[in-house]
């Protein structure tokens, strides 16, 4: 499980970093989305991996913190997802505005050499 998660985070981060270094705005926005997925998975991983455990308290299982999954990173991830969703939507609007105003989808607003 650890290796799958680590590989997943690695592949998402690598693709994301490559994409945000690309010259087209759409590639950048997809890269940022991939990076935010990687970061969300990373936050969950920081709250200890495990499967089948109750989120906070199983019935009659109180008292042993090792038996349940840490709820705090899940709350953090939820917040992070909402915020990155909102900011990505905002970026999308600016991207469209930039496309409309400059007539190109290059991140610098003009084609190289133009």
């Amino acid at each position, binding site marked *: 499980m650890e290796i799958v998660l680590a590989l997943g985070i690695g592949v998402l981060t690598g693709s994301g970093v490559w994409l945000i270094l690309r010259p087209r705005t759409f590639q950048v926005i997809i890269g*940022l989305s991939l990076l935010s997925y990687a*970061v969300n998975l*990373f936050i969950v991983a920081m709250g200890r991996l495990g499967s089948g455990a109750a989120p906070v308290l199983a019935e009659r299982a109180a008292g042993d913190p090792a038996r349940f999954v840490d709820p*705090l990173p899940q709350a*953090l991830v939820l*917040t992070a997802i909402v915020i990155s969703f909102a*900011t990505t939507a*905002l970026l999308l609007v600016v991207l469209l505005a*930039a496309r409309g105003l400059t007539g190109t989808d290059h*991140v610098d607003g003009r084609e190289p050499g133009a």
Partner: protein
Amino acid sequence: MRDHLMIAPVVLPLLAGAVMLALGGERRRSANALINVAAVFALVLISILLVRDADASPTGIAGIYRLGDWPAPFAIVIVADRLSALMVLLTSIVGAAAVVFSLARWQRVGVLFHPLFQFLLMGVNGAFLTGDLFNLFVFFEVLLAASYGLALQGSGATRVRAGLHYIVVNLAASLLFLIGVSLIYGVAGTLNMADLAVRIPAIRAEDRPLLEAGAGILGIAFLVKGGMWPLCFWLPGTYAAAPPPAAAIFAILTKVGAYIVLRLSLLLFGASAGASAQFGAEWLLIGGMATMAFGAIGSLASQDMARLASFSVLVSSGTVLAAIGLGHGAVGPALFYLISSTLGLSAFFLLVELVERGREPGADVLAVTRELYGEEDELQESEEVGIAIPATMGLLGITFIGCALVIAGLPPLSGFIAKFALAAAALDLDPGAVPVTVWIFLAVLIVSGLAALIAMTRAGISALWASPDRTVPRIRLIEMGPVLILLILCGLQTIKAGPIMGYMQATARSLHVPNDYIHGVLGSAGERPAPRAGGT
């Protein structure tokens, strides 16, 4: 009632912004403007009360507000100590100046200026007051989201292009912020700043590299915001393209990064942090000095005043970061400098627009090549509103000189005292031999001041004296007033330098020995050694 005062800088802008939107947003602009002005002046009063409370309290903490009244490590806390109260006061003053300035013209340029402005203030105040790392992230995002909207006010290709870079860079920085926060949580098991300060000395040696990696990544996220070289290339373009009232309040945003670096490095990695003490201090010093040098070169190279102001922002935040890296005695003067330079820069951002108003667009670039071309177009001033003050040009010139004095650090205004105190503190750090880094710091400090002076003088001469193609701009009192008030505050900072520096030194002392902060937040729980058994 007084207990709830410290949450007001967060709740009041939220309510004000929400009421404006509920009233109908753009369709009720004058009502929105009224609410905005009332809210910012209420914030100034509230923050003055907070500063007085913090200064009067023996622990230096005006109060600790537990949201939902849960005990401290579990609930998010709002802490108003001397530093937070001071930063909130600075935000409110600059905010009030920018809002009053915007009433004349800029509120009509974009959409939803007033609600966005209030949400920005909410985010900034929240970031200054919160005592929890993840809550800090949330407030950061609030202020960033509002600043995206403000930076794009008025639209136009330049603004949208600069805004696109600004948003992408800050989104990437936010992701780094999250990685840093979750690494720290994974190692230390808490995100409450005071609780972290208690737990960090007890972190096991094998977990320490992870913790320091987390802190380093977190630091990079803040330094992107604070504009440290080489993370600052987004800043000049964005700030120069932003509408002036937004740029004036953006001068605070770089200081949010510097504030958090200062707060966390001294709270988490201060003298009592065990093996991690002084983590990153030398990087702050080197990076800060590189930022000052980059800003100085950039301000010499910039051909228009808005870019000059943006590079001056870099010099200012570089100076603050380098002084934080020096640590110890330099922190108090660094705070004094932070206040003075932020007031001066905000005034300058507002002033730039007034000076530029009477000139044709691109006049600065033309001025450089005027000898070659030697032809000017007649400028038509048509739809400006207000009365032309006969002494307008004189007043503009005097305020320009005032801004230049503050930014370059010359007497008689507060910039000089701030830089003098910084230099004196840097020389006093080590009573034996003065290390070579301090000499370099002093050299960069003085040279960056000189560069600012040269660049400002050149810009001033070409804009106010030697400009053949200018008409006297029509400037209204509510536009000139805020600039003058900000400069008068710099003057007051000079006259009252003793008491203000005393406040800064007391702030620096309580930052270096954060026991009162930790005990205040955690209560008696602050005593426990708090080992964490589980690990990640």
